[in-house]
């Protein structure tokens, strides 16, 4: 993050208006909004402050952007963590996210009303849309002039050029009669001066979005909300691992104890916001025994069904080049032949070589020369993948394991198993994408069964008995404790979560300002 503003700092003895744990999509917009309205704000971030120019496309070294405190993954579909979920460093997961930024489908807010399954959100798209538009406008999102599934929508930036996978997917959609478009991508395609930050350059099509954007083209919180927060007087404290939430005799939060460079510190606050994500937020609440009168903290962990299908082509594809996932179709949001509820988005996939190879390695048992030949097919490979609804299920949850981490805190245990709905969606998507690739001449077609993202665990709703926070993110149990991240999502919806997290963050900030 760069900013010409000298950052204001607070003493640990100062009682800041708001202390925020986490600097990603959940914490950063709220930090900026509260600071802009005159509140004193401190943001604790467990990871370091990475200079954008130091990011490297080397996938092994770029793991420094992932949350690396060990998690234990269980269930019949144990989720691979690391990439595609939690991040660390000022900017959170948005340092390494893919920047694919579709809006939530209006129907996904009311899945239970529509289907009798899943859970409704306590409000609809009309409530969130103004915040979504503010986010898109402020951070910079590119998209097509005409979006087939929402003709009224406008994007401020033209799409980046379509790479090989995007072009191949267009052919596949055309062959099957599906609509397609350049998808919404949170990156800029012309140089701009970002308020409070400085120059952000147009996307250079380098393809390494997941390893950190080196020229500021990708819209993260590190080059948007966080500099704005600092400009209005917020303090960002990197390298601070929060572990203990302190309270007074009435049960209200008084501050947080965190470790920085091996030393324990304490920051006092009037209000605490947890924005640490769907694993670390419930882990903090569970280790501190807080805000759980509903018994719902850690429950209803959800992901996205993220099936991928890859194929090899005769052409030189070079899947590392260009924005990785440009082409989208939303035609599967409620497919007519569905044997599941909800829907899924399909996107084209380019990919960096080790990530691609990992998927290949873990989805097959090929060995010997055949394995070498498969890996050598990298430059001729293109993929498609989905993000689809995942229903909340009681057996999917975050709990505390019996193992302690380096801080002496129990490691989180994440149990994740697909139910019939997720499997039905996976098979539907695998069939569709296989057919699309076959139609356009792909060979060695390979289906990869995988889940991505982390959602749920501190559900938002109107009823205190079955929810952790109310419809604006405030704890039912502790009135100066708020949650602002994807843990409050009542349902997974199909869209990648970052946009909704940021929109909810602004909305929660407004609610905090009203109290």
């Amino acid at each position, binding site marked *: 993050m760069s900013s010409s503003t000298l950052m204001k700092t607070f003493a640990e003895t100062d009682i800041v208006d708001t202390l925020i744990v986490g600097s990603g999509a959940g914490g950063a917009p709220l930090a900026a909004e509260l600071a802009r309205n005159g509140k004193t704000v401190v943001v604790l971030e467990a990871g370091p402050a990475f200079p954008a120019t130091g990011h490297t496309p080397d996938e092994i070294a770029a793991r420094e952007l992932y949350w690396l405190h*060990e998690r234990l993954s*269980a269930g019949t579909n144990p989720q691979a*963590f*690391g990439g595609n979920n*939690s991040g660390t460093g000022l900017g959170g997961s948005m340092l390494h996210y893919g920047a694919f930024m579709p809006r939530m489908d209006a129907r996904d807010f009311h899945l239970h009303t529509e289907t009798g399954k899943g859970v409704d959100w306590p409000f609809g798209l009309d409530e969130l849309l103004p915040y979504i538009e503010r986010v898109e406008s402020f951070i910079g999102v590119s998209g097509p002039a005409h979006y087939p599934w929402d003709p009224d929508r406008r994007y401020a930036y033209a799409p980046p050029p379509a790479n090989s996978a995007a072009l191949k997917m267009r052919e596949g959609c055309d062959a099957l009669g599906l609509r397609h478009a350049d998808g919404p991508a949170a990156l800029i395609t012309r140089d701009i001066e970002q308020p409070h930050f400085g120059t952000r350059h147009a996307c250079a099509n380098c393809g390494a979005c997941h390893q950190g954007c080196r020229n500021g083209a990708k819209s993260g919180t590190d080059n948007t909300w966080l500099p704005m927060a600092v400009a209005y007087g917020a303090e960002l404290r990197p390298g601070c691992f929060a572990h203990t939430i302190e309270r007074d005799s009435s049960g209200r939060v008084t501050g947080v104890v965190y470790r920085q460079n091996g030393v324990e510190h304490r920051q006092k606050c009037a209000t605490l916001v947890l924005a640490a994500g769907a694993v670390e937020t419930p882990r903090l609440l569970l280790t501190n025994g807080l805000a759980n009168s509903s018994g719902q903290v850690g429950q209803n962990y959800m992901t996205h069904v993220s099936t991928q299908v890859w194929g090899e082509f005769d052409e030189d594809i070079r899947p590392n080049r260009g924005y990785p996932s440009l082409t989208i179709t939303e035609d599967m949001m409620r497919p007519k032949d569905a044997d599941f509820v909800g829907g899924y988005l399909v996107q084209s996939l380019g990919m960096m070589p080790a990530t691609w*190879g990992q998927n290949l390695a873990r989805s097959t048992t090929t060995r010997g020369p055949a394995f*070498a030949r498969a*890996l*050598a097919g990298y430059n001729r490979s293109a993929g498609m993948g989905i993000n689809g609804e995942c229903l909340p299920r009681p057996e999917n949850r975050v709990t505390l394991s019996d193992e302690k981490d380096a801080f002496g805190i129990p490691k989180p245990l994440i149990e994740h198993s697909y139910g019939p709905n997720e499997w039905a969606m996976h098979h539907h998507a695998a069939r569709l994408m296989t057919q699309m690739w076959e139609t356009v001449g792909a060979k060695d077609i390979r289906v990869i069964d995988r889940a991505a993202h982390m959602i749920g665990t501190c559900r938002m709703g109107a009823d205190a008995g079955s929810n952790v926070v109310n419809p604006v993110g405030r704890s039912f149990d502790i009135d100066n404790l708020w949650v602002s991240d994807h843990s409050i999502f009542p349902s997974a919806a199909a869209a990648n979560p970052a946009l909704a997290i940021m929109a909810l963050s602004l909305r929660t900030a407004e609610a905090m300002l009203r109290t």
Partner: protein
Amino acid sequence: MSRPPDRPEILDSDHLSARTREILTSRLLIPTVQPHTLSLQAYAVLDALLPVLLPLDEILPPGTDIAITARIDSALSGPRDGWRFADLPPDAQAWESALLTLDDVTFEQHGLRFIHLAHDLRGTLLDAVMEGQIGLEREGRLTASQMKRWSGDLRGEVVDCIMSDPRIQQALGISSSLTGGDTVFQGFTQVGSDSREDFEPKATAPLLQMAESSE
């Protein structure tokens, strides 16, 4: 540390940042102290297993040793990727136990240690591991279901090492490290099919020569 004589051309490209060049160059060095994490017995089993899982003789020039065994052994003591299967012990312990399990099962089935087994028999045993048919129910060893889980980690770790090696990237014609230099961040001008830019490597791997020559 010792350095093999080959130096991939991509390391001298001005489309590489100094940090990325340093990271990739460090992979040319072979740790002189081996093993670092595993026992000698487990290390030897891993060394004998890797050519069965993923032979590189059709990708790299003859005689090139990119020291995958040593790099995996070192990596097991370094920062990991932030998660593990709950039904496996911590990574270093899981790898040690898995490799010793494989060695013990080999001895029980064939009366020989894994490193003395013929190449095709090693392959048959690896297939059985991946299918969840080999394991031991005793302290310090992994059960068949744990061995199957671990085989996914084995495959993933090997691929990480392979695909992040500059000699492999050069041989397969992969340009993913060449996103841009420090003074000029070039990115890619061409992103469509059949549009290799001049600075991007051409594949040199023997198994890809036929495809490249028809370009």
